[in-house]
């Protein structure tokens, strides 16, 4: 199944702001007015350096944080503010998350079957123990682990295997949206590819949409249908993967693209990455507004900047 752009968006984030009050006179503005949409079955890549707010967005969307301002609509339901019991159940089953660190994302004192089965246990979605076991075994097979792994503990696994367990935990709820928060950056290259393949297979089979948060652009390009470029809490540029990679408008996007390492020695040794420094660039993100470049390609900047860059 590929992305269905004719349907209503599965997730709609409008002008999301997430501030953290550190002390009485200091507030961290992690996310500043970000808007984007994810359609059913689509993969939306969110890229940016550390501190750009990309992980915060993921956590606000799944309501690990209470958004400061803005509106998040998921599955035609407003999930900002206080949630009713049924909305909460819907959110906690239909939206799932895969975490970054395979070491800390699994409870070291729980068996793999109990980690995977946690969602089932919380929402009582099985009628007998046999049914629960069957579901767990099926999921294990789907993520490429052997059934005998069910009774083992997380520390007995390698990083890639643990990340598979994390995926199985999210998958068992049959979610419509999976937020993958840097879920491959802690893995070895060959294992990264395994996990990405697995995620693609799952998408083809279940039609789940992904919010793929990462800093590795080559993987993001490979897996995403559309991409959003984030810097200092602002969504600077968004569009289809093709649009962003073939026609980057914002200087920050350009510098990001120029820095992607390639396993090509001669090319690499001759390449010089573009530099981009927000402080000296003369750009003020707060003054920018959304400008349509074409198709679904938007860039956040002032009118003058837009004219200059898009020439």
């Amino acid at each position, binding site marked *: 199944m590929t992305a269905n752009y004719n349907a209503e968006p599965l997730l709609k984030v409008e002008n999301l702001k997430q501030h953290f009050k550190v002390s009485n006179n200091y507030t961290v503005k992690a996310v500043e007015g970000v808007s984007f949409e994810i359609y059913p079955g689509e993969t939306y890549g969110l890229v940016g350096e550390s501190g750009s707010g990309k992980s915060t967005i993921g956590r606000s969307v799944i309501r690990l944080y209470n958004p400061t301002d803005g509106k998040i609509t998921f599955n035609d339901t407003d999930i900002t503010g206080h949630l009713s019991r049924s909305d909460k159940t819907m959110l906690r089953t239909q939206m799932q998350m895969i975490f970054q660190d395979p070491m800390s994302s699994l409870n070291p004192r729980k068996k793999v079957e109990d980690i995977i089965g946690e969602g089932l246990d919380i929402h009582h979605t099985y009628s007998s123990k046999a049914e629960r076991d069957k579901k767990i075994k099926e999921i294990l097979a789907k993520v490429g682990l052997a059934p005998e792994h069910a009774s083992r503990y997380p520390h007995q696994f390698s990083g890639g295997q643990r990340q598979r367990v994390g995926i199985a935990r999210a998958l068992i709820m049959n979610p419509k949206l999976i937020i993958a928060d840097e879920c491959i950056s802690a893995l070895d290259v060959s294992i990264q*590819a395994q996990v990405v393949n697995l995620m693609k297979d799952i998408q083809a089979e279940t039609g789940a949409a992904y919010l793929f948060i990462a800093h590795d652009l080559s993987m993001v390009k490979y897996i995403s249908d559309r991409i959003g470029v984030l810097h200092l809490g602002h969504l600077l540029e968004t569009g289809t993967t093709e649009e962003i990679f073939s026609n980057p408008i914002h200087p920050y996007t350009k510098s990001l693209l120029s820095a992607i390492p*390639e396993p090509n020695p001669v090319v*690499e040794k001759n390449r010089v990455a573009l530099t981009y420094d927000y402080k000296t660039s003369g750009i003020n993100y707060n003054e920018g507004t959304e400008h349509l470049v074409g198709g679904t390609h938007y860039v956040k900047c002032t009118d003058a900047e837009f004219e200059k860059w898009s020439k």
Partner: protein
Amino acid sequence: MADVILNVKNLDISFKTSAGMVHAIRGIDFDLERGETVAIVGESGSGKSVTMKAAMGILAKNAVVNSGQIDFTYTNEDGELGTVDILEKDKKWLRKHINGKRIAMVFQDPMTSLDPTMNIGKQLVEGILLHTKLSKDLAYMKAVSLLKEVGIEDAEKRMKQYPHQLSGGMRQRVVIAIALSCDPNLLICDEPTTALDVTIQAKIIELIKKVQKERGISVIYITHDLGVVAKVADYVNVMYAGKIIEKGLTNEVFYDPKHPYTWGLLSAMPDLETDDDRLYTIPGSPPNLLHEVKGDAFSPRNRFALEIDDIEEPPMFQITKNHFAATWLLDPRAPKVEMPTELRERLDRMKKEASKYDSEL
């Protein structure tokens, strides 16, 4: 061969653990010439970090060196060339003469190698005073010039700052400055950029390259990032399960890989033109070295494994002057096996792109 500064011969190391002996390094040979950059590539657990710790003489207490020799040639205090076997010297001697002085190391996380309670200047000056006979004022001046050398602006002002006041990239620059403070002969970089953002990664690597060129020191990169390797290395050693399974000039290994594991590594990293539905990957996970490996350690994960792989370990086959690979596929008796077509196409694409810069390819 006068210019070989590090020569590792038949290194074999085990670790005593509560579960039994873990055979982490199973016979490694490589050498490094002056001014050269060698990359050691491998997944976590392949033994690449252990090899470098052995070279620094900072192996953990439970390590047992079964055999091997690490000959390090360096300029000693009197300016003469000397060669020592690092494995034979005790830790105290190494700390005094080698570590941080002749061999310096840059770690993945700059915060772990900086003292959070001391300002940058003090850390730098102290390192210089410890290893040289300079006076305090001269050491201070040297520290400032080092900071300038690693591309830190307002060096004098930065000297008074503490590590937490600097950005990640800046911290790594400071770590490099500290590493350079004693004019080492060899710089070991252990995943120097994995903790940094892509845009800063490129800058740090360019910095290390620049410093190396100016000072003529040798650099060993330990990394799993093939993009970094492609950018910096002259030679590549690919490690798997405690052995080097392919080595050669960077161009040879990248444009004409021979070992199925290297094939897997290269194709696991999508380049910007990859459109295939699936990435070609290496299935499974690395073996547990607690159990003695019979035959080729890679065989269980190898889509191109031969029957012989389970019986006997493949020797190093020579392909060109510098290019070697340990796989039975290179044996004349083996059936002809080609690399996966996805990779073939990718390599052709890479070569085509590369030929824009270098017409020989």
